[in-house]
């Protein structure tokens, strides 16, 4: 904790022309406490909207208020004062950023009120972040998974926000400057920027959107043994998590809370060969769906790390994988790559290669002749201009597991290619063939296919065509 970091709000106890009085060496001030504080934390940007309320006693006439934020990461251009009560009797006459104290400002409030009013100060700070992470434990037979989602809030802002209501924003917003940069420079320099544009953009991005969602929760006693609920709601293109009650996260600390819990999420296992996505290997996948029938679907899953274990059936866990998932909307698929399985062997063997449809170009002419077409005449003065390469492959899969497996394979070919097989393939894209096979437990299978590549003069396209045909080994 940085003992010097402190957001200070003070009512200065002097009367008339504040700037004159401030230049003296003796000051007297009262410090109204924070009554409540709400943090709205974005995970796509290093940005947190702080909304705090304080009760201030005003006297009639000029009331100088001082707000300072030494050693914190507050964007000075974003600080705003609003009167929540007696708004018609209170006015900010001017706001001053003193040149010699970079992390401070004065509000000069003109009051018609002699008494208490609640004020709200809002500003952006950086240094408070949140992230999501997940833990999944598959059952011993790998038919279901118990999943938990967490959010972890980290406070490196330099300030301690006690008993803060915490709201987390899932989604991406647009910022034109990093708050952390703005926090480092004095207001005089910020003012020289296109401050108008800056604040307008930021507000439209964050404050307007979030202002319309009322805070939930409020003060609460000790948490029940069930733990706090994290309330999820959609808003425009965003999703907001509100942590029930309030939390205190000291500076430098982080805190991880459960955002959801799902039991017996149905799990499907598939083996995939997709070299572009998973490298040149057959990998084992866990497939799930983020929806209600799967006991999930209460929230989109924000970007985050997932750690996957399996009940090893001997009263313990096996660690399977750790990977990062990208934002998964409600209803979308969850795909976890567990890496290669030593019990499933995947081999590609090239059985045969041959060429045909060889076309010769008579040198110096535009005349072409196919080899074999005119066998009796050997044209010496000619060169190969087009041909077809044939390759016959055997894709061998051995399944040593105790379960039948489903294997999906994708193979990508450049150029003009005909893919000939009885495998009922389909085109994943114009140059990628996708086909599937099932292998019973303890058995092996061999899938034959032939790839015909048209070259030179024979290449008329740049794509793959599928052709259903039996393929022979030799």
């Amino acid at each position, binding site marked *: 904790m940085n003992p010097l970091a402190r957001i200070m709000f003070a009512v200065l106890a002097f009367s008339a022309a504040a700037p004159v009085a401030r230049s003296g060496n003796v000051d007297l001030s009262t410090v109204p406490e924070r009554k409540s504080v709400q943090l709205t934390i974005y995970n796509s940007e290093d940005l947190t909207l702080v909304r705090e309320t304080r009760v201030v006693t005003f006297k009639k006439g000029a009331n100088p208020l001082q707000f300072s934020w030494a050693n914190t990461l507050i964007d000075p251009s974003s600080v705003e004062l609003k009167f929540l009560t007696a708004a018609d009797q209170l006015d900010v006459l001017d706001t001053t950023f003193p040149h010699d104290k970079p992390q401070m400002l004065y509000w000069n409030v003109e009051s018609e009120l002699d008494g208490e009013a609640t004020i709200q100060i809002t500003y952006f700070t950086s240094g408070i972040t949140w992230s999501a*992470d997940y*833990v999944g434990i598959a059952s011993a037979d790998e038919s279901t998974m118990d999943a938990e989602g967490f959010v*972890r809030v*980290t406070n490196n802002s330099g300030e301690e926000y006690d008993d803060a209501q915490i709201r987390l924003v899932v989604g991406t917003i647009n910022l034109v400057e990093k708050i952390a940069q703005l926090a480092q420079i004095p207001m005089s320099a910020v003012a020289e920027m296109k401050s108008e544009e800056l604040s307008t953009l930021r507000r439209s991005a964050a404050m307007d959107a979030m202002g319309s969602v009322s805070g939930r929760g409020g003060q609460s006693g*000790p*948490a*029940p*043994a*069930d*733990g*706090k609920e994290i309330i999820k709601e959609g808003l425009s293109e965003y999703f907001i998590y509100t942590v029930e009650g309030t939390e205190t*996260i*000291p*500076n*430098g*600390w*982080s*805190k*991880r*809370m*459960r955002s959801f819990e799902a039991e017996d999420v149905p799990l499907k296992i598939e083996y995939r060969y997709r070299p572009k996505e998973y490298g040149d290997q057959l990998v084992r996948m866990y497939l799930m769906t983020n929806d209600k029938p799967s006991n999930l679907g209460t929230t989109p899953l924000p970007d985050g*790390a997932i*750690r996957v*274990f399996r009940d*090893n059936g*001997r009263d*313990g*866990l*096996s*660690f*399977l994988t*750790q990977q990062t998932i990208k934002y998964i909307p409600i209803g979308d698929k969850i795909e976890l790559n567990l890496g290669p399985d*030593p*019990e499933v*062997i995947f081999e590609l*063997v*090239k*059985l*045969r*290669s*041959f*060429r045909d449809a*060889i076309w*010769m170009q008579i*040198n110096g002419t535009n005349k072409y*002749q196919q*080899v074999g077409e005119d066998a009796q005449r*050997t*044209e*010496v*003065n*000619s*060169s*190969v201009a087009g*041909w077809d*390469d044939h*390759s*016959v492959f055997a894709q061998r899969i*051995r399944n*040593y597991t105790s379960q039948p497996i489903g294997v999906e394979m994708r193979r990508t070919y450049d150029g003009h290619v005909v893919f000939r097989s009885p495998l009922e393939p389909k085109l994943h894209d114009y140059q990628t063939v996708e086909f599937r096979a099932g292998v019973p437990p303890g058995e092996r299978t061999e899938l034959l296919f032939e790839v015909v590549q048209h070259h030179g003069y024979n290449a008329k396209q740049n794509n793959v065509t599928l052709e259903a045909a039996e393929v022979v080994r030799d």
Partner: protein
Amino acid sequence: MKKIPLFPCFSRRAAMLAAALSVLACLPDSALGRVKLITLPVRERVEIQLDNPRATLVEEERFVPLVKGENQVDFSWASTQIDPNTIVFRVVATADEAAPDVKVLSVSYPPNESALVWTVGASDSGSARVRISYLLGNLTKSFNYRAVAANDEQSLDLSQYMRLQNLANEEFANSGVWAGFGPQFLKPIGMNETKEMLIERYKNVPIQKTYTCNPVEFDFLDRAQNKLRVPMHYVLKNDAEHNLGAAPLPYGKVRIFIQGAGDDPQAGTAFLGEDWGQFTPKDDEMRLYLGVAQDIVVKRTIEKNERKRITGNLHEHDVIVKYEIENFKKQPVTLDVVESLRHIRNEARGDSGRDVEWQLGKETTFEGGPDSERSTSEQVVFHAQLPAAGPEGKAEVIVHKLHVLLKNEW
């Protein structure tokens, strides 16, 4: 009476060796305080799971005394490579009906410290059986083998060991250790200790001793005289028929010995050398290199290389590779002759970059033709039977030919 140690915060972690668990008998706010009352639940059980090839998972079980309401459970570690992001805290269901319902409410991570604090809610006061698991670095495994071949080299006894190296800066009293296959061990593992455990002893594994020539893989022994290097291997097939096949054989060093011929084969056991055994799935072969055979001489020459024009710049090549083989051993031997067709094409006409289209020619002499299991479009494998050398050590010169037509080259 239960002893509850009173620790000042700063000395508490120093007092522990490495990973420590404590329960703070105080309110949440005092997590920041200097003086605490804590209980230190001991490890009841530790399991070390080595089944993941890249990570070691440690699971430890402790009985944690909890009071009704909120509890702070502090877990800290020093000088160990615990990955804090992988720590999972689970409450294990017990048959004890008096056990409280327990739930982790949140986890707090203090700055600049290898520690975390769980806030745990309990429905009642009582002890909960919890299991804490985490990935631990520097606790690694490797495999090695000891192979003792029978004197006739027809079979061997294969012992498979797992070696656990504990540089994790943490000691584990009797801990369950599991490699992902084979038996489960219960062993104490001390700090900086290396422990070798016998996983399995496979008796009487039939082996094949092979002699192979392959100019691409094993090169020439004497290029000027066209003599090929002829390495020897023991080949083990990982299947039930060969008394193996229970699990894939992991990568590891194999020390190879051979029994003596006398009455006491143990006494005459000699070290033959060592090799890295590659990862061998079930039904695949593990090949163990034994060195170069000095008694088998293979001279390889290209006897014929003829280019025939088909039309224009399109040609085919008629190539014959000749092998003159002598076996100076007293036993008949099978020699595996392996050739890469791309290599032959490149020797005959230079590399065109294209796949090789080829046909075996009529003058090929190897009996039985190519080995269909091991031959592909890129490589052919033949077996040549070599008779034993004569009584005076005189070897018969066996001549074999590989006749290949390389088609449609330009």
